[in-house]
């Protein structure tokens, strides 16, 4: 028996910052101090606090160490593990209140969270099926196979109100019901898991795969039982090597103990799972493209209907759900639909994981009940905007979503509210923008992504998004007219209305939502040839205010192109023709004599 356990995050973020080497060192030091029988090192999945990594939690106290370095390890072992003295300097600030160290769960970051999908992430060792079983794992599968009919299962999921967490928010139970009933006597059906997470900045699916892979296996087996499928495929991007590895380990373990394979729990139900690797095309997150890719074809969407529930993988009825959706299933089965509907809003039940990024203090993964306001997420959980800057907008839904301005900070986040304000849930990326962000540039950034990731099949997306991007470029370079803004908007609606798949249909959203809330910024670029946020270099001009300039020559010396001239102790001037607008002079000036605008 171990008296203490040290959990080290083995998610991609922390692994990149060396957490696995730290874990090795920790084990070495523990052994050296003769604590090997008392203290156990557990490599877990992601805790969601990626900006603080590598992170470590020491139980039973729950002491949270952040940004641990390999050289800190001997001290942690000798002081904390051996002598019980917390190494205060490494403890995460937020957990230190009035010199008292509190547990992570009591910090603002965690307090408002409600972890359902991420429940086991950062808690169990994902490479040990027994730890998953210890937290009630596979009980839901048992319950389903032994005590419920497929109809019962579908009903619970329908009643729970669970909606797809991958983008559109289609009711999961309805999807299962259609796949179960639509095609009578299908000789084969499939369950797919969409783990081709591609939204910039979103990584909740990766976290579940890395931190709790068995939940996916269990949920997919449940889905298989519900619709009558005996084979599942998990489509994971090849860029997620840790996730792929852990999932494979989990599948192997589940097979070994008979939780995958023939006659699971002696119920007569057979189910097996295989991994398919995606080569990193965003469009493969679109369900029909994903299935085309699994089939070995070019990953391109095909028209719907027919929907996958009727004709999916290999032309057979198929249920495709994303990772986060599946991660909710076993708990809904065990705790019941009522438990799940007790969280959330009228039409959006349960919780949602968000990946916080951009201009926000606590970047990382958070899971909150549906209906939590944007303000709570940004200010309470996310710790607000760094450097005391003003919140300008939050972008949700990735390249398919839109920008939400400050006026909507108090809107409860759920599927329908986000759509109503011109954005969408998407997979849960949440990028915060402050006053220094140019909204036209933001729109351009997302458009560039879509242009790159368009599969090229249909005309509106292949050529239309490219033209949209070019129009935005024309605006940010100061070459556009007001007519161009109208043309831009018209083209946006055309692409929305005419594209083949969801990727194209939503591609203009970043433009449309910024046009809706920040049209004045567009107009400023076009009419005044100014970028209000001071981002678009083509519209910027650096000038030296003669009154403030002391003639220290610092700016002239730092200018890489020799655009600044002047005599010592005399005001300097910038030759705008030569200036490349790098901003080096401005940051060098101690007297605030250089302004841009």
């Amino acid at each position, binding site marked *: *028996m*171990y*008296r*203490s*356990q040290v*959990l080290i995050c083995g998610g991609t973020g922390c692994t990149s910052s060396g957490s696995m080497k730290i874990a090795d060192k920790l084990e070495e030091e523990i052994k050296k101090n003769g604590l090997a*029988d*008392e203290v*156990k090192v557990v490599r877990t999945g992601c805790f969601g606090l990626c900006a603080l990594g590598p992170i470590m*939690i020491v*139980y*039973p*106290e*729950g002491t949270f160490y952040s940004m641990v370095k390999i050289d800190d390890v001997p001290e942690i072992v000798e002081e904390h593990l*051996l*002598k*019980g*003295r917390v190494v205060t300097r490494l403890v995460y600030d937020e957990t230190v209140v009035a010199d008292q160290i509190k*547990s992570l*769960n009591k910090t603002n970051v965690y307090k408002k969270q409600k972890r359902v999908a991420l429940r086991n992430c950062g*808690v*169990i060792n994902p490479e040990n099926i*027994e*730890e998953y*079983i*210890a*937290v*009630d*794992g*596979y*009980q839901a599968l*048992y319950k389903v196979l*032994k005590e419920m009919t497929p109809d019962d299962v579908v009903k619970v999921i329908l009643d729970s109100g669970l909606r797809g967490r991958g983008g559109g928010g289609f009711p999961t139970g309805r999807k299962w019901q259609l796949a179960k009933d639509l095609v009578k006597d299908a000789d084969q059906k499939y369950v797919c898991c969409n783990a081709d997470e591609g939204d910039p900045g979103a990584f909740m699916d990766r976290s579940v795969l890395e931190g709790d892979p068995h939940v996916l296996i269990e949920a997919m087996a449940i889905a298989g039982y519900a619709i009558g499928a005996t084979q599942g495929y998990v489509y994971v991007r090849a860029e997620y090597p840790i996730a792929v590895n852990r999932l494979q380990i989990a599948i192997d373990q589940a097979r070994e*103990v*008979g*939780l995958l394979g023939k006659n699971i*729990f*002696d119920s007569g139900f057979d189910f097996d799972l295989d991994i398919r690797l995606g080569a990193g095309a965003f469009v493969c997150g679109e369900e029909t493209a994903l299935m085309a890719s699994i089939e070995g074809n070019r990953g391109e969407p095909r028209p719907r209907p027919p929907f996958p529930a009727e004709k999916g993988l290999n032309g057979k009825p198929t249920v495709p759900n994303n990772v986060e959706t599946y991660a909710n299933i076993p708990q809904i089965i065990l705790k019941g639909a009522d438990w799940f509907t007790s969280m959330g809003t009228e039409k959006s039940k349960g919780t949602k994981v968000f990946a916080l990024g951009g201009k926000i203090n606590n970047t990382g993964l958070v899971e909150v009940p549906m209906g939590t306001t944007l303000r709570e997420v940004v200010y309470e959980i996310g710790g607000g905007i760094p450097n005391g800057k003003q919140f300008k907008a939050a972008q949700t839904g990735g390249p398919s979503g839109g920008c939400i301005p400050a006026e909507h900070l108090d809107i409860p986040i759920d599927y329908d509210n986000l759509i109503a304000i011109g954005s969408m849930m998407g997979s849960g990326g949440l990028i915060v923008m402050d006053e220094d962000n140019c909204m036209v540039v933001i729109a351009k950034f997302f458009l560039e992504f879509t242009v790159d990731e368009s599969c090229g099949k249909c005309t509106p997306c292949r050529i239309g998004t490219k033209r949209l991007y070019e129009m935005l470029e024309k605006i940010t370079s100061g070459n556009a007219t007001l007519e161009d803004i109208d043309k831009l908007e018209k083209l946006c609606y055309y692409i929305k209305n005419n594209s083949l798949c969801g990727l194209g249909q939503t591609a203009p959203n970043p433009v449309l939502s910024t046009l809706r809330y920040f049209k004045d910024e567009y107009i400023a670029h076009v009419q005044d040839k100014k970028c209000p946020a001071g981002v678009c270099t083509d519209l910027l001009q650096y000038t030296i205010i003669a009154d403030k300039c002391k003639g220290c020559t610092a700016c002239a010396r730092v200018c890489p192109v020799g655009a600044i001239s002047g005599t010592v102790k005399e005001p300097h001037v910038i030759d705008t023709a030569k200036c490349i607008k790098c901003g080096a002079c401005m940051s060098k000036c101690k007297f605030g004599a250089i302004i841009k605008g």
Partner: protein
Amino acid sequence: MKTLEELMAIRNKMQSQVNLRAEDATVRVVVGMATCGIAAGARPVLTAFSDGIQEKGLKDVMVTQTGCIGLCQYEPIVEVIEPGKEKVTYIRMTAEKAAEVIEQHLIGGDVVAKYTISTELK
């Protein structure tokens, strides 16, 4: 694995391990683990407590260490802190005494008075 019993067997076996990571413990057993404590034999006491508590499946009890309390002559010292109650300090503990404390105090709710510092000081 074919039955619920098999599944639950694994669950029960592993649960105490995983429960260590739950932060809902209300009772804290604090073992003095400074140099003085270790020299006086705090290690086996600490192990006895953590093993015993996990064996008995006591969910809301957490075993933790602390540094020197300043009463070196009484080491190994163990404090049992329960919410809303006065802290109980056991002194000159051994693994055997630990088992008694678990049984009578942590499970039974009766302080093992003979080992407490207050008895000593009387």
